[in-house]
């Protein structure tokens, strides 16, 4: 019952939230632990880096809705070799990320046409 409800919700969801898209972007490149994802986001130059709490709430929801899954807990070389929970993107997550990327691209194109962004120079 709970799963049904949650899944229905994913399908109905029109767009991923920015934090969710960021997470999927990071995981698309490979498995990451939580702080790693945050560092990725910082590296991308995002001005609104999500709080730890915000990100883990997003992770919890995405786990629940099947966009991502937990990978094996293992030592993290970038965290003094302490053990960390790693996450991995699912096929559904990849699809959702692609859809979102396409949507953003479309928006971008529209923004160029409307002159909100400089025209692409090829």
């Amino acid at each position, binding site marked *: 019952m709970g799963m049904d409800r949650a899944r229905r919700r994913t399908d109905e969801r029109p767009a991923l939230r920015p934090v969710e898209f960021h997470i999927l972007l990071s995981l698309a490149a490979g498995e990451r632990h939580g*702080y790693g994802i945050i560092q990725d986001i910082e590296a991308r130059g995002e001005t609104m880096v999500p709080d*730890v*709490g915000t990100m*883990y709430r997003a*992770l*919890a929801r995405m786990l629940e809705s099947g966009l991502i899954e937990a990978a094996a807990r293992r030592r993290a070389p970038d*965290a003094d070799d302490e053990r*960390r*929970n790693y996450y991995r993107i699912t096929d559904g997550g990849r699809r959702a990320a692609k859809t979102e990327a396409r949507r953003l691209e479309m928006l971008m194109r529209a923004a160029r046409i409307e002159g909100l962004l400089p025209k692409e120079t090829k």
Partner: protein
Amino acid sequence: MSRSRLMTVSERWFRLLLCLYPVDFRDDMGDAVVEAYRDRARDALSRGGLTRLVSVWLYALFDSLRNGSGERARPAASWRRSGNWGRDAELVTRRLLRARAFTAATLATLTLGLGMFAVVYTAVHKILIAPMPYRDSGDLYYVWRDYGPNLDLKKGALAGSDIAALQQAGGVIEGAVGLQRFLGGIFSLREDTDPMEIAVTVTSPALFDLLGITPALGRGFARNEVGPGHPLVIVLTHELWNRLGADPATVGRDVRLNGRPYTVLGVMPPGFRFVRNEPIGPAQRVDAYVTFEVNLAETNPKAAACSGLIRARRGTAPEAVAAAVEAVGRAVDERDFSGRGLKLYPVGLKTDLVARARPALLVLVAAGLVLALMLTVNLASVLLARAAQREHEFTVSRALGANDGAVMRAMLLEGGLLGLLGGALGALAAVWGTRALVAVAPLDLPRREAIAIDWGIAGAVILLGLLLGLLAASVPALWAARTSLSFLLASSAVRGGGGHGRMRRGMIVAQVALSLVLLSSGGLVVRSFERLLRADPGFKPEGLFTVRVRTPPEFFPKPNDAIGFQDRIQAALAALPGVTGAGAASTLPLIATTGQTTITIPGAPGNTGDAERDALLVDVIAARAGYVEVMGMRLLAGRAFEESRPSGVFEAIVDSNLARRFFPGANALGARIPYEKDWLTIVGVVEQARLYDVHQDGRPELYVRAEDWGVRPLFYVVRTERPPHTLLPEVQAAVRRIDTRVAVGDPRTMEQIVDDTLRQQKTSAALIVAFALGALLLAAMGLFGVVSASVTRRRHELAVRLALGADHPRVLRLVLREGALLVGVGVLIALPGIYAAGRLIRGVLVGVSPSDPLTLLAVTLGLALVTLLTCYVPARRVLTIEPAQLLRQ
């Protein structure tokens, strides 16, 4: 601090912050969150040292506060955490909709009960609890005189000189004003046009400042607009201004009061409904305010006719105010009463105003609470019965894995939903209920116009409904949750049994007891009301019509002009078609406004020789010839005042109390009473026409001839064979023919006046009886349900009994005995309740003892009869049991 130590501290802090998140999130994600923070903390420490670390700590705190509460509020998560309330609510709604009859009946009961409670609660809240609409109204006090040994008068008016003394007192007394009835309020916008009767209060200019209210139009009185020779000024209430056409240009204009020009200074705001509290009788409505034309300090201290209102310094304790007022009182006593023990004392403004209505209201609240309790028990028993029908469902759902929590939740939801709806409907019903109450409420009920439901009260009633529903549902919920599975399966196999029987019977007993308590109070109140209705007030109110026609000195400066005018009015009224007689007096019975004086009768046989005890405070009524006869008062000896006035003799009539006091067993006729530097001669003795209460004598009464003393009577009374109120147009026309300057005020039949006096008792009697009957109905319904269920449950047993040779009447008695036992136990339990209720209502009972055996017996028998009848109806079903058929099934 070492780096690793700092990391440990950080980790503790982050773990602590985790508590802000809901537990399930903590379980799933907590470690990961702490780890991420650790990573961030380590980065911070290596990059920026301790300051950077501390900022991470702070950042983590804000983050956890925000996301923790966000996660708690997340709908899906909260559902996961606390169970599926939404789904339960859906199921309960569906179940209630399916059982329409049950839902409708329950809601109707709740609506009625809670509605009635809401009406009473509203009245009590608005009258007794809500503060008066003045600035810091808790610091306002009325001040009264206690004459102590001087006179048998514990609550008397103040003299103007007392007010002046209070004004000069200073200290905690910030301000004091006097309030006095203005004699003759014939008001017109222009000279000699459309005169109307209004109620005017004479006051000190500081009244509005004292109350903290500023006029809506124009201004209030200036400090110097008082005393002899000041220009005449008047402030109108909003109602009066509306009656005059609501013309803003009224302010600044000259209007006429008793023919004299007054300048309108201002108009008070619409909500301003100040009443003037009087030492006796109800508070008086005010239409307009004028200021004293005398210097209060120079008034006669023996002529006490003012109400005194003071404001204490903000937040002064009542004891301190009392001490300050008493100090002023001692000074007044020294100065004006040569220290014979006169006292002044303050009473809170609201306390003083509601003193008369308070006991009855408290009784009503108590009755309302008992009714609410009764509703709870009733709802509980109804819900329990419903739960019993669903035993099978519970068993199955628990067999399928529903836990205690789920079963309880469903029950609580059902009760809560019903209670909530009932509360909302009750509040809605109370909107009309309060209007109805205001319509029937006594006219002098304090703050009558303020009685209306507001959002706060509606919210309170809805909340009460919810609480009541939850409380009621908790009984079956506990039962359903506690009952063991095997027991449920076993008993539901025979369908309709169950261990709830004892609980349900207990609740019936409680209902019977509670309703008997209410019924006994209701019975006593009704008996007391009936006493009042049958009480003989000392006159015959039927067929009497009264009006007030003033004879202001401004229009009739010489006493003989006034007497001539009064003669003409009285004659004109007596000559109206269908009128058999007319009279006039300075006051009417039961309206409780008259002057008092102290009399002595030198040489009377009843004198004790102790000068203080032989002076008697009496009510003085100035009456014209014909009054005693027209009123239908009973003459015990001598004669009434006659048309012709003997010269040189001032006649008086005394009531039997006065006669008995001074002339025990002797003839009072012919005795002489010193009165205003002259002598009265007693020509008649009458039975008292009661001035205050219908059922008991007030002070002794002394009637003097109005004409002898230049008293200008206010009230004309005519006795007619027609319906009295139809006389008004003719009375008005007759008065206008005689003088166009005066107006006819306060047209009422004497029966209306009697009615108004009884209104409060009537209203509270009606409400209490309604409560009591509602309670009886609830108890009867509950009993019906229990007996009915018991017959169903015991069908097999009864069939076996019948098959074994018991006859039907015997089985019927068996079932009836069960009901009778419940009633009997209920009655026994009710006894202390009846005693307590009797003590509570003693104050509002008239002529009936709170333990009146006849009433209590009748009520108990009535209850027993009704409840046994309700047992009998379902019990009769045993007669239809066909043992052979039933046992074969």
